[in-house]
């Protein structure tokens, strides 16, 4: 292709992967940060095996660091003899061991020098098994030993201290551990797997000599530089071979193709898109929010050029590519996303760009199915998501907007983030109030009727009628996971928040499978609306709101998925995305003038007609801003 013309004759290659394996495992050493045990990569080396008496001095690879560090040893186990083996670890502190992705030992916890053993595994001679050991040290003396035995047992019992026996000298103890350590002769390093993945994700580029580079006095060179900066999120110089390629395309009247070069840079997703998604993924709405399922899905949809309406209707999410971490789903995969954000934290720790570290998972799975279930790795009882609705059914969205409260916030924020309509803008005093909840004080049960009519009703009339979509959902902040009421036993008088109104009221109001908080303060206004199911009605399509939103699909429905579909198919959704991208890329207020808003509406309309490709929207708007700046 023409755009690669600039690379002709230049060293635009990708780093070649290492092919010669060394005896031993690849050890990657990290500094810990709080509970993030593998937070900051610091060093890498080949360790002949894992048999370290770190004591109080810490690893040689981390000089001066004796506490708060972690190590991942990764590579292959190639047994020379077939047999039934048992793997074991003797560590202070926590440890995990995976063999071909399966977690054989999972004791990532503070502990003294403790032996943990795996189940027995049958290994074939000469076969390469992927092996990975994760270890961390909090404080005090430390040690890490990866052991095996064919005798069926170790000298210490499972879960007991692996310390020297009475009468045993230090030397004898160390010899004992060393004899049990898996020897280097059956270990091979991982062939720089992470580094190769990282390198393969980088864009080919090289530094041109000044005489090869495009002239800085040519306006299109500056346009190319600005276009790159806007999309990739960082600056580069005219000596960057990509700038030459972009400039040539702009010369040819193909700025969109030039923009595509910039959006190929991993930083486009890692910085630009991620930042935009982060701002709407958490309650705090900060661009520095840690990676989570909401952000990952937003980035993945952009990367893969999937119809952006799937943001609100998709039955998938994005999670870590297994090449990044040689583990199965049990620890860092789907089930781990149920109760914590650590799966996504691990992606960040890996330092692999999101462009290469995310996989699309075909169904939004993994919500706990029993009340008070302690969600743990490998726990049974996880079910597919019953109402997948893109990021609206993500754990991050639930944590931000379904925690406590009355689920009105989920409606408010969905409108704010995806239709660019804060509640103050779409409140409607003329909307029917037949669905306003029982917790909103009003005449004749008390309160100020004038205030209700002029203030409360205008927000609650529309919002309460829509919040039924979320009637099955709650977020348990203490346990950190989403709850789907129909999967939980009905409560009997307490206010746990799961399944239905209090049982003693059930007969009277007939609410089943509705989280308790939907009918919060049910005795307060006895003529108010009782939520009995997850149906919703959209009263926000009248008067000014009709033009504002332009809803095109059904204005009523059941559940989050139908709610998401209604929003995604509105006229306001693509216009809102255009505004957000404009703000992110062009660094300007999209509502600064009526002309700008009108222009963005047109951009959004055209974008929708062309298939809702989010990456294309970024590229288009970036080229427009480039033009305006000239």
């Amino acid at each position: 292709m023409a755009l690669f013309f600039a690379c002709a004759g230049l060293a635009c290659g990708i780093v070649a992967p290492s092919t010669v394996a060394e005896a031993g495992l690849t050890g990657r050493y990290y500094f810990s940060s709080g509970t993030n045990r593998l937070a900051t990569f610091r060093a890498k080396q080949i360790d002949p095996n894992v048999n370290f008496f770190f004591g109080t001095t810490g690893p040689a690879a981390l000089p001066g660091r004796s506490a708060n560090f972690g190590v991942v040893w990764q590579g292959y186990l190639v047994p020379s003899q077939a047999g039934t083996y048992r793997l074991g670890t003797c560590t202070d502190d926590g440890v995990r061991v995976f063999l071909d992705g399966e977690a054989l030992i999972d004791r990532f916890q503070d502990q003294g020098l403790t032996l943990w053993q795996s189940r027995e595994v049958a290994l074939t001679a000469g076969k390469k098994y992927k092996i990975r050991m994760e270890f961390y040290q909090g404080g005090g003396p430390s040690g890490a030993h990866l052991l095996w035995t064919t005798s069926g047992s170790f000298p210490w019992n499972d879960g007991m201290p692996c310390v020297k026996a009475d009468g045993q000298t230090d030397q004898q103890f160390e010899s004992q551990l060393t004899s049990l350590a898996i020897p280097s002769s059956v270990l091979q390093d991982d062939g720089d797997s992470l580094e190769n993945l990282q390198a393969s994700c980088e864009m080919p580029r090289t530094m041109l000599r000044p005489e090869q580079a495009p002239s800085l006095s040519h306006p299109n060179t500056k346009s190319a530089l600005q276009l790159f900066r806007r999309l990739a999120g960082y600056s580069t110089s005219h000596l960057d071979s990509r700038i030459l390629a972009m400039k040539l395309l702009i010369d040819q009247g193909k700025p969109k193709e030039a923009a595509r070069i910039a959006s190929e840079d991993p930083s486009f997703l890692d910085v630009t898109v991620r930042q935009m998604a982060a701002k709407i993924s958490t309650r705090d709405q900060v661009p520095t929010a840690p990676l989570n399922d909401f952000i990952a899905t937003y980035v993945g949809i952009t990367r893969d050029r999937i119809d952006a309406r799937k943001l609100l209707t998709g039955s998938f999410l994005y999670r870590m590519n297994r090449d990044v971490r040689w583990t199965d789903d049990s620890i860092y995969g789907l089930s781990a996303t149920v109760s914590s954000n650590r799966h996504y934290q691990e992606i960040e720790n890996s330092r692999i760009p999101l462009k290469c570290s995310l996989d699309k998972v075909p169904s939004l799975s993994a919500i706990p199915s029993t009340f008070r279930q302690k969600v743990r790795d490998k726990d049974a009882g996880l079910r597919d998501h019953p109402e997948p609705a893109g990021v609206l059914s993500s754990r991050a969205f639930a944590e931000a907007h379904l925690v406590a409260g009355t689920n009105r916030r989920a409606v408010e924020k969905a409108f704010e983030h995806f239709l660019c309509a804060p509640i103050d803008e779409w409140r409607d005093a003329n909307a029917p109030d037949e669905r306003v909840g029982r917790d909103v004080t009003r005449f004749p049960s008390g309160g100020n009727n004038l205030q209700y009519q002029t203030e409360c009703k205008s927000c609650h009339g529309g919002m309460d009628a829509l919040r039924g979509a979320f009637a099955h959902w709650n977020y348990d902040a203490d346990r950190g996971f989403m709850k789907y009421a129909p999967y939980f036993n009905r409560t009997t008088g307490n206010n746990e928040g799961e399944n239905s109104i209090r049982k003693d009221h059930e007969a009277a109001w007939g609410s089943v499978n509705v989280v308790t908080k939907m009918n919060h303060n049910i005795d307060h206004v006895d003529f108010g609306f009782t939520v009995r199911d997850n149906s919703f009605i959209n009263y926000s399509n009248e008067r000014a709101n009709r033009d504002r939103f332009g809803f095109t699909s059904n204005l009523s429905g059941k559940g989050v998925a139908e709610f998401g579909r209604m929003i995604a198919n509105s006229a306001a959704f693509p216009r809102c995305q255009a505004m957000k991208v404009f703000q992110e890329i062009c660094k300007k207020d999209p509502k600064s003038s009526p002309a700008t808003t009108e222009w963005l509406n047109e951009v959004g309309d055209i974008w929708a007609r062309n298939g809702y490709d989010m990456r294309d929207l970024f590229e288009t708007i970036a080229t427009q801003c480039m033009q305006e700046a000239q």
Partner: protein
Amino acid sequence: MMSHSSARNYLLLLTSVALLSGCGLSKNSVLLKLSSLVGGGPSGPGEGMIIPAPPSSESVVSVAHFKQTYPSMLALTGQTAIPACDDVYSQVQGNLAKVGAVNEISATQMGATMSLSACVCDGLIKKEKLLSGPSRIFFSDINFTAGAMNSSTVLLDRSFQRLVETFTAAPADANDRSDASALLSTMALTGSLTVARTEKALLALCAGTLASAAAQMQ
């Protein structure tokens, strides 16, 4: 976000720390035509997408945040990861701007930016020093075995101009060059530019320019 003038003030402030400047924000002339925005290319999903021109509005700039600063420095100097600078980045990351807001500019933030730029420039100088003069990109005129002032003022000025031009996409103006010259004179007067200190002079020139360039995002 901030306006051009306040950005310039920030840059001047930053470069005063480094005794340098050279980060003008230039306006380009219009070359692109509306017709160039038609279509997304033969295979692009935006094919047929016709977008009208945007209305003009005030240009603003923002400060680079922590995820942008270091990659910019590496890209501007044509380097990939530098382990020593990765360490510096880990140490100063928390002091760089978090979101790129103008109110994040502070002495601490500027100090962190300078620490990082000094490290990256140190890597650049070491890299170029290994090359023969004609093979170098930034310091082709410099004799690393002689004191900085033993290189003619013209040659030093040429290196400085190359740094400014590459990092900021704009030529160094008279004030910038005057500042650089003053820096070198001061260093010479204080005896800093002995034969073995050529690299220090280059480091000062490079780090100030790079910090200014990488800290701004428009």
